[in-house]
């Protein structure tokens, strides 16, 4: 399969807070190399502070890298995003802050549709999207604070798939949901991927959720990808950090 995303020698550092005059920087990403095949689901695992979110922000074009390249189908990310409006999308961890509190559900879902330019039969499109993510029509005119966490995250997913994107970044998309809701959302994401042929980058710290959904899992540790595994061969991890992480999963039997 062709590569959708190719990242080479990506580096990113931030100024240390409080010591700007010395110009000392903290290196967050230190030469990241990764490829994501079209149609696949790639999991990105790492502990807090390992640079997952920074990497996600760089891929989405929200920040500029210090060094290295991010290529979508061989085109620099910035250019690709410009040429393919609405073909990349994102679902965030913190659902309460990811919808404008002054938007109703309809307005939130309509926003990316307007942005991508193709506005035809908006009402029906939104109805179809709501059905797709398993939401009732009654919630259409509600505000975010009138929805439950699971409902709101479904709205975020509906909004993310509204423009038929090819690539979605799931930035810890299920981490702040209840366990029972987590599995529902995972199933929903899995179904949508198959139906709409979307490529996922699933950023998470929860190994179990990732291994359930992804074909390939990357372990990010101290700004570098230290291990790359197919989901079937988790037991074959060679890197110490990846093995520790795998060992730390608490097995439980019912």
């Amino acid at each position, binding site marked *: 399969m062709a590569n959708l995303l190719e990242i080479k020698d990506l580096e990113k550092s931030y100024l240390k807070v409080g010591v700007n005059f010395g110009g000392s920087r903290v290196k967050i990403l230190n030469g990241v190399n990764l490829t994501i095949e079209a149609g696949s689901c790639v999991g990105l695992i790492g502990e807090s502070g390992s640079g997952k979110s920074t990497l996600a922000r760089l891929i989405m074009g929200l920040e500029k890298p210090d060094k290295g390249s991010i290529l979508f189908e061989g085109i620099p990310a910035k250019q690709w995003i410009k040429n393919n409006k609405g073909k990349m999308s994102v679902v965030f961890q913190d659902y309460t802050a990811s919808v404008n509190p002054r938007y109703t559900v309809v307005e939130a879902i309509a926003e990316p549709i*307007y*942005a*991508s330019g193709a506005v035809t039969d908006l009402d029906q499109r939104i109805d179809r999207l709501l059905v797709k993510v398993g939401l009732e029509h009654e919630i259409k005119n509600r505000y975010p604070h009138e929805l439950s966490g699971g409902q709101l995250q479904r709205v975020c997913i509906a909004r993310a798939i509204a423009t038929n994107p090819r690539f979605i970044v799931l930035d810890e998309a299920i981490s702040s949901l209840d366990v029972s809701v987590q599995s529902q959302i995972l199933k929903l994401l899995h179904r949508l991927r198959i139906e709409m042929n979307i490529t996922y980058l699933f950023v998470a710290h929860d190994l179990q959720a990732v291994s359930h959904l992804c074909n390939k899992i990357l372990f990010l540790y101290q700004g570098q990808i230290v291990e790359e595994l197919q989901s079937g061969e988790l037991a074959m991890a060679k890197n110490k950090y990846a093995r520790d992480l795998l060992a730390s999963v608490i097995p439980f039997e019912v």
Partner: protein
Amino acid sequence: MAGFWKRFRNDNLAMGVSLFLLMVITLAILAPLLAPYDPTAQNIIDKFQGPSLTHWFGTDQLGRDVFSRILFGGRVTILVSVLTMVVTIVIGTVLGVMAGYFRGTVDDVIMRICDIMLSFPSEVLILAIVGILGTGITNIVLATVIAKWAWYVRMIRSIVIQFMDSNYIRFAKVAGCSTGHIVRKHLLVGAIGEIAVLATLDTAAIILNISALSFLGLGVQPPTAEWGMMLNEAKNVMTTNPGQMLAPGMAIFLVVAAFNFLGDSIQEALNPKINRGFKTKRYSLLDSLFGRKKVVTE
């Protein structure tokens, strides 16, 4: 915005205060038609009269009708303060949004200029500018704008930065929304409550400021009526006729208080969450003072 008006209409204090301000502004605009006397006509024989049917608020030390002077004074005070507020807020919003949205070099340049402006104490700066340009209404407006814009740029920039950090703006950027869309739909709509609060509080502060300058003899020149200057003139006869301070003092107090309450009410009406029983602490004092009830809408 429909929700905003609904909540605003249901808030008794907000409606009362708006009506009051509307009335004050109408009275000020219609002053030439409504005033029973010429505000500058002197009648030294009738000086220091108490309130009566012929002179509602009495007369001052030169026998001028205080009610007419309050009406004409309101024209100057309110016109000048609203004009100053609009100019400062527009400058503050444009530069603040630019600095907060684009960050980087743009932000650095704007902020360093603001730092320079903020290193002068604003009262001294206003006095200095009025001193150089001379007294007069135009120069007061100019001096107040020069002294204050930097502070508003700072405030609005920090409000904008807080919004820029939210995930819905990140999403809008990823979805390919234009800068104009993000600024209008997310930043301005989100920040307008806080900007409105700044603006109304600012108007109140400017009314006090202009009154203070007139009180010092640097603002509006006699015999033009202006509330601060009326207070200044009343000060001279404070020991013999303390009642002279009542009318201009109350006028300033009521209008300033009304603008402050209006600011609070706008913020409350703009935030859908506040009506849901999530009231934040800053409203609790006001609520208890005015016995404001929670508004149930929808």
